[in-house]
């Protein structure tokens, strides 16, 4: 492991909670509905993060707890039953219904597992119910996906068939590209989790080789291991380097030669390098500060340093699983400062002191930092844009070069007035 500097910080945080991950999960599985059992705050959070108004009727909603629900838990269970019945009558096309716990439902100890079990019996063969918590007291942002996937594992049948299982939500076009490349490598049995239809869950077992596409799936990985799956240790497929090592690790697990991998992906690498050049020109030597939010920060830092030659001031992450991140941390330059957790005020003090060229942060902080003259990139865009894989390396770099380029345009005088 390279000599990185680990720090922990506690205090007030400026991050999303796990409910936010519903925003991309519901798009991944169009036959599923996500019902948050929570407060008006939960409903307002999701609609503010998701730009909900563009949907005629979104596939997620909130059963808002009211005063009378807090008075008696028995009534709350009955009320939830009623809401679910209404919902299923209204949306008969729904195949899986996720009951999503929130801060208030966790605090009043609403037992969503029991509710889900009862509903499963009643709607047997029609709708499946699973539950997980996306509450802010337990989860940050992307950890919501970890909870949702973990909740699906018990529904996955067992099979000893050899397969490659890609775990973590990917943009559909990126997933297709990956599958094509793996087929070219000679791996024919490839499945994804989460699948595109909630009812088409992959079968798993001791010959399932799991390759993670996202770094925030600690609990899912643990449960997949319990089911006998082999976890392929690799960095994450962000940038050329991460993706190459990721393909190599998968190939090794399937006893495919390195030579073969290089043969297939070299043309991709060559054109990606070409595409990356214009971004690197802008990013090179610029100083980067990453605030914690998506758990993608360490992989992004590795990509932006190793491939775009940016200097790393501080790499924040809401949560650090050193085991899962081992391969990534090994690729970081020595003395990288990693900070797990957050005290947002102290961290912003450090941002101002270090005078970075670019800060990766949440939407609540971006404009205030811009107003102080610091260029920013909002982190939520990383989970909405197709950024994985060799072919997307330049697009990923583009997310960071764009604000710098814009700043350069707006501060330079290029036209002489005649």
């Amino acid at each position, binding site marked *: 492991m390279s000599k990185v500097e680990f720090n922990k910080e506690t205090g007030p945080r400026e991050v999303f909670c796990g409910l936010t991950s519903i925003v991309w999960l519901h798009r991944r599985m169009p036959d599923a509905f996500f019902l948050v059992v929570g407060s*008006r*705050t939960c409903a*307002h959070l999701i609609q503010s993060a998701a730009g909900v108004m563009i949907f005629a009727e979104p596939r997620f909603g909130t059963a808002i707890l*009211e005063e009378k629900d807090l008075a008696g838990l028995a009534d709350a269970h009955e009320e939830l039953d009623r809401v679910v019945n209404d919902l299923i009558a209204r949306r008969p096309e729904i195949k899986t219904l996720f009951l999503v716990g929130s801060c208030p439902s*966790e605090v009043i100890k609403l037992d969503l597992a029991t509710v889900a079990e009862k509903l499963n019996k009643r709607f047997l063969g029609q709708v499946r119910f699973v539950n997980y918590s996306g509450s802010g*007291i337990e989860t940050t942002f992307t950890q919501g996906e970890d909870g949702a996937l973990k909740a699906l594992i018990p529904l996955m049948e067992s099979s000893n068939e050899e397969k490659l299982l890609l775990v973590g939500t990917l943009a559909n076009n990126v997933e297709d590209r990956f599958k094509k490349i793996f087929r070219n490598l000679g791996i024919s049995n490839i499945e994804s989790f989460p699948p595109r239809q909630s009812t088409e869950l992959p079968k798993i077992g001791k010959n399932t080789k799991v390759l993670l596409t996202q770094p925030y799936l600690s609990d899912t990985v643990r449960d997949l291991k319990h089911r006998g799956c082999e976890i392929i240790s690799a960095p994450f497929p962000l940038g050329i380097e991460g993706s190459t090592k990721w393909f190599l690790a998968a190939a090794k697990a399937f006893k495919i030669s390195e030579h073969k991998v290089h043969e297939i992906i070299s043309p991709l690498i060559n054109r990606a390098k070409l595409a990356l050049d214009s971004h690197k020109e802008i990013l090179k030597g610029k100083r980067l500060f990453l605030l914690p939010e998506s758990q993608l920060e360490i992989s992004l830092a590795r990509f932006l340093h190793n491939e775009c030659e940016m200097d790393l001031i501080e790499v924040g992450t809401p949560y650090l699983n050193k085991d899962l991140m081992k391969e990534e941390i090994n690729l970081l330059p020595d003395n990288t400062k990693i900070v797990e957790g957050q005290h947002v*005020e102290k961290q912003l003090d450090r941002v101002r002191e270090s005078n970075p060229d670019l800060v990766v942060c949440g939407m*609540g902080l971006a404009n205030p930092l811009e107003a102080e003259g610091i260029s920013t990139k909002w982190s939520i865009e990383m989970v909405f844009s197709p950024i994985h894989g060799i072919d997307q390396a330049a697009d990923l770099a583009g997310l960071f070069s764009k604000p710098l380029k814009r700043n350069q345009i707006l501060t330079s005088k290029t036209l002489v007035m005649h």
Partner: protein
Amino acid sequence: MELTLWTYEGPPHVGAMRIASSMKDIHYVLHAPQGDTYADLLFTMIERRGQRPPVTYTTFQARDLGGDTAELVKKNIKEAVERFKPKTLLVGESCTAELIQDQPGALAKGMGFDMPIVNLELPAYSKKENWGASETFYQLTRTLLKEKVSSSDKISPLRWRELGRRPKVNILGPSLLGFRCRDDVIEIQRILSEQGIDTNVVAPLGASPDDIERLIDAEINICLYQEIAEASCEWLKRNFGMEYTNTIPIGIKNTIEFINEVHEKLDLPLTNKEELENKSKLPWYSKSVDSNYLTGKRVFIFGDGTHAIAAAKIAKEELGFEVVGLGTYSREMARQVRATAKDLNVEALITNNYLEVEDAMKKASPELVLGTQMERHSAKRLGIPCSVISTPMHVQDVPARYSPQMGWEGANVIFDDWVHPLMMGLEEHLIDMFKHDFEFVDGHQSHLGHTSTNTNNILNSDEKKENNPKEGIIWTESGRAELTKVPFFVRGKVKTNTEKYAILRGIPEISDETLYDAKAYFS
């Protein structure tokens, strides 16, 4: 339990944040778990604020619940006071903290600070955002002025005469995330100043706690948005005898009525009555011949109470529309909205469910919708033109240009914003006249009832072109499949670029790989 897919108002503590963020020298310590900081982005993204809201979130976690969350509250209060040095501290809790009953307000008061502390109790499971804003502004006003209650005589609206100065008024209610408040304040101050009336304090927008203490230097209060300011105005009336205005100056008639009301309350003679009719272009624009086609246009109105009622009056009396639907999500103003609806012979729709609003809209088959951002989306789906008149809003409702809703300029803005989505009269006439001519391009319809670009059409037109390939280039199945995965709004460009690349390189068949080669080449 209420199934909600989307909500017009946030929770009450977001209302409190609107007051805190609108003001200076105030800090709000909010006992809340991680995630509740999402509310910051409403201010920094929708309002494009260059400052963070002055809010410290205690960020308690599940593991804190077994221990001492009260200590965590105190630690955060201490740090916030040391760092931000507010002149007044607001302390409250969000929905989850309300359940664990740490009573952060009481804790703060026991910490020995000498600044005023406002303990906000905003029931999250029964109240909403506007109520929270109103309650916060009221509690703040009460806390900062309660000591002056007994020592002060009742304020006479005629006091300015004895003091030998121009009359002074306060403008109460404008806040961040309110609809066009920034510009309404400028417009109203301009109108008052023209009438020889000075503004003492505008609050909460831009005010400090010191300004709140100065409220009683004015003779009367202008209650500009009832949702936010009525409770405070009522308290100031009860305790200091300060009269307040009821008329909301949106539209020509209401603006004149408002000026009259202010003059009557202050016993100030109105000297320029005749001029007032001509201060805005709306009356003449509405009378000009081109506006004949506006007559009887069916309009559906939904929004907060203040803006919905005002819109109904303008639509009916100043533009000659027919109001075919009127409603609000503000339960606090349901009574007034119902009364207005009755005058218009329609049934008022009081609901927080946007799907119900969309259904009512569909049934009313209006030609124009005046609503919130949500009605704009519903109207778009139904192919009906829409203008936004009320919160909840979007970044586009905070325009760079001066665009109030109130006063003379507000009436001008309203005329343009409501009439432009409808087709200009002459243009409608011409389209009708020439629509059978072969020169008339299909699709050059009016902007009336435009639906958004249809993805299928683009796909189809793409396919048409693909049957007609440039210079013998062929799109293979994989290439075509890859192309359909490109978002429709850039698909045309990707297609052209890839073909250009193929020609350049002499590639006869475009596969998915060619697409990516071209992408890399042009990036």
